């Protein structure tokens, strides 16, 4: 009998001799400890079993609408493949600490998989290595880490070079191949952002020698700061013809600054990363265009890869962006990129 009864205990206590009584009590306590450990083990196994069905999907932030398309893709894939996703992210795009905490929690909860859109490629390296060491299959979406693809680690990222090229071509087209352009919203700590910038600069310099890049400004974490930066650019370079913003915060800041100064007609804004607000500004012809990232496909494919097994998927997928202008903002193709309804499937 594993469980000691009261009579067993009392019988022990009645026996004479201190040593014997001590040994009896030790045996009873050892049985209690054994039962406790067994119960804990069973509980742990049950809890592990319960959490293994979840896929943690962690966007850069849940505070902007761009990642809601990723939410939609992940949600629909989850429904299709009979898995459950846990969607949560930092409240700010620069809150790396919080995102690391969410990754670690997914590992602790032994999630079935992890889909991460890293805020910061280097700071997330070690947490992702911890996840891989714990056997959590991981798909990195958006921008790549410095870790090479490997077992349980694959990438579904933006085609950064194409974004830069697409932006440069659009700037060349709207400035009629001459004039001044300023670049804002560059994240100096992001290889992805620097890659877009590199591609943009290369195409401008090689294909549009009449266009000069007069300013390059780092990204900010808020619309207001971004607006201040663009105001500084406009004062420094009053003849600027176009502004290329590498993130949605920079694009919105540029838009707000130009609106305030009444320059939305003369200075064209080409932005990266879609949002519903910017789509409306395109409809109003106050923002020229945005280069939308296919975040819906990122979410869908990432969950699909985890549900079906990563070995059936290429370890590195680059998704092509879409240029959204006033001509196609309400098209079906653009709607796919702009929607944030995470409850319904995309067309």
């Amino acid at each position, binding site marked *: 009998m594993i469980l000691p009864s009261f009579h067993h205990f009392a019988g022990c206590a009645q026996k004479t001799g201190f040593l014997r009584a001590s040994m009896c009590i030790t045996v009873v306590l050892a049985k209690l400890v054994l039962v406790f450990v067994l119960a804990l083990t069973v509980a742990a196994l049950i809890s592990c079993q319960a959490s293994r069905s979840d896929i943690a999907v962690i966007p850069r932030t849940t505070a902007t609408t761009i990642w809601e398309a990723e939410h939609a893709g992940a949600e629909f894939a989850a429904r299709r493949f009979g898995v459950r996703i846990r969607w949560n992210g930092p409240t700010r795009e620069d809150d790396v600490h919080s995102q690391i*905490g969410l990754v*670690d929690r997914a590992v602790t909860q032994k999630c079935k998989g992890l889909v991460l859109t890293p805020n910061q490629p280097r700071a997330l390296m*070690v947490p992702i290595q911890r996840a891989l060491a714990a056997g959590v299959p991981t798909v990195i979406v958006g921008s790549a880490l410095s870790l090479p693809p490997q077992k349980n680690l694959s990438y579904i990222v933006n085609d950064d070079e194409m974004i830069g090229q697409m932006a440069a071509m659009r700037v060349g087209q709207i400035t009629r191949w001459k004039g001044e352009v300023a670049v804002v919203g560059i994240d100096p700590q992001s290889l992805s952002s620097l890659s877009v910038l590199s591609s943009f600069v290369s195409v401008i310099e090689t294909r549009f020698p009449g266009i000069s890049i007069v300013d390059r400004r780092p990204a900010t974490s808020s619309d207001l700061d971004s607006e201040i930066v663009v105001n500084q650019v406009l004062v420094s370079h009053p003849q600027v013809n176009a502004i290329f913003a590498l993130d949605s915060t920079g694009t919105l800041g540029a838009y707000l600054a130009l609106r305030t100064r009444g320059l939305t007609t003369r200075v064209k804004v080409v932005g990266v990363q879609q949002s519903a607000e910017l789509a409306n500004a395109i409809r109003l012809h106050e923002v020229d265009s945005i280069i939308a990232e296919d975040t819906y496909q990122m979410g869908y494919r990432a969950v699909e890869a985890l549900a079906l097994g990563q070995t059936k998927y290429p370890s590195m997928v680059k998704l092509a962006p879409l240029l959204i202008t006033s001509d196609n903002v309400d098209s079906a193709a653009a709607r796919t990129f702009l929607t944030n309804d995470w409850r319904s499937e995309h067309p």
Partner: protein
Amino acid sequence: MTRVRQLRWIRYSVLFALVSLVAGIGVSLIYRNPKRGLPYRAQFSEGQVRDWQQFGGTWTVAGDTIRNDSDERGAKLVTGSPFWANYKAEADVQLLGRGDAGIAIRVSDVEDGVDSYSGYYAGLRIDDQSLVLGRAGYGWLEFPPAGMPGGVSPNRWYHLAISAYGCSINASATVLGTGERASITAFDPNCARTGKIALRDVVSGGIWRHVEVHALNHADGEQASLAKPTPASLYPTRQGLLPNYGLQFRVLSISSRPPTDVVAIDSLRLLAASRPVHVTVRGTVTLITPRTYIQDATGGAEVIFAEQTPLKLGDEIEVTGDAHREDLSVRIENATKRSIALVAPVPAFSITPLQAAMGRYDAMFVELEGRVDSQHRTDSSVMELHLTGGQQEFFAVSSKPETEAAFTKLEVGSSVRMHGICVLNSAYTKDRVPFALIVRSPDDLEVLSGPPWWSAEHLSLMAAGMLVLGFLIHVMYSHAEERRRTTFLKERERLAHEMHDTLAQSFAGLDFKLRAIRNCTLRDLENIDRNKLRTELQEACEMVRHSHDEARRSLTSLRPEILEERGLSEALSQVGRRMIAGSSMDIKTDTLGQLRRLPAHVVDALFRIGQEAIANAVQHSHAKHVRIALDYQRAQLVMTVEDDGKGFRPDCESEGFGLTGMRRRAEAIHAKLEIHSNGVGTKILVTAPCKPDTRWPAFLSYIKEA
């Protein structure tokens, strides 16, 4: 237990279970009542915020209001019953800045985060000047917003109300003072049914007052049931025109770029994004070997000079060269320098490993803390430490042999504080850690604390020690059990022998005698030899009495409890007192020397010898005084039993007094038995060897005796 009592017990148990069940159901119904605690009015004026649970934000009570000053996205303050179902929550709300603020109802499954809860939220939003209503469920789905007449602006009071009956959700907002109003009615087919209320804001911060919750009655429900299902909107792409912002954005005074070609080091990543650029930077030298690094207030860079250039740490120089970007690091090649000044070496930026990992401090002199996980040599024979700090891991590499020696002395598990150049270069990180630290000298290394005691090695040793200890205890216990069992068996054997030697023999003799008497009586009664018959009967009676004495002696020879509890001396004294009870004989007991614990079998043997000796003295010696003495000497115990009786001749005939048993017992414990008897008394001496008391050294024995 009788059957009647059993039935009564079962009846009481069933009754108690029923009462408990009813009470439990009652308590549960009260607790789960959807109207429990309603109507509810928040008492902020009395500082009562204990019932509220905070999820993000900085919440403070000010007068009769509660205020959140943080610009966090999705800060929440939650209260109420999770079983509240159909109710209306309302409050006066004031926004403190750009963003939105409002009230959430039917809130459950709450975590820190923007939309990390389940429920409905109604708020006033500055960005589109509207009243907004939507459903959160670890994501956000918004119903079509309603433009707010008069707009939404900070520092202005609005009365906001949100109600839910069934799956109909209503929200309304009124400008206090003007009475301008907007409202939204929505129907969510798969609605959240119950939950708490929450005050919530996104970025704006806010102030809330007069927070009240009322249960909705049936009439409200009938009105709400007229609502039609509202398709989920794709806010704001279906929202139509972008609302007029109506905000005055600041235009700051803007300084133009300084009229110099010297650029800040942190701009080099942007300038050299696509190809190398020729630049001039100014900075302070922070490292010379194995590579040269400079830094200014904005960042750091590696410098490779076109020709050998003498440098000292702390030199402030102007460097001109070709800036190359390699991932996130910048290297200035073909550099030339112009000395500007010699200043003191720059102090280190005190940063966390997370900050270092984010790349902002690449090529800069920093101070970090971490725990040493391992140390090893790289392929290029450079000593390298692997450290952990917070949620990050990093390498520390030595730049000099002296630093290597300091690295070697570090124990794994130590907490250290280090100064060095933070580098993201994959030559140092090997793409395994986010950054590495080049430590310049042993002075840049400070051990904060050694490794914790509970290392794996120590814990393993402790576990092994515990196992050995447990094994030893087990062996000792088994040994003690075995000895106890052996003692029992010996005692049984002794009793068996004694009963065979005494009682069995006596009964055999008695049987013989009784048969003889019977045969005698079967003859002619006239010719019975009455004298012989009387003699036979007398002998039979003697045999019965002797057997009785033997039986009594056997019983009294069993080890008394007092021997266990109070020791040999007291046990012998008690045995003696019992034997002389009712007579004029006197018994005296003396104990000499230091009492000490003796083995159980020795004590038993001495007790029985003493008991036999006392019994002989009492029964046969006709003595007036009996003396029992125990003398605990250093290596032996001398037990003496003497009397002042008539004595006897200790020869073979006397062995019937039990002397044989006494001798046998004395031999069993290697003791010496001496019997001295001369006409005026008898003295029995038993000298038993026993181990000396070693708890006190011999040369300190005077202290013990003192």
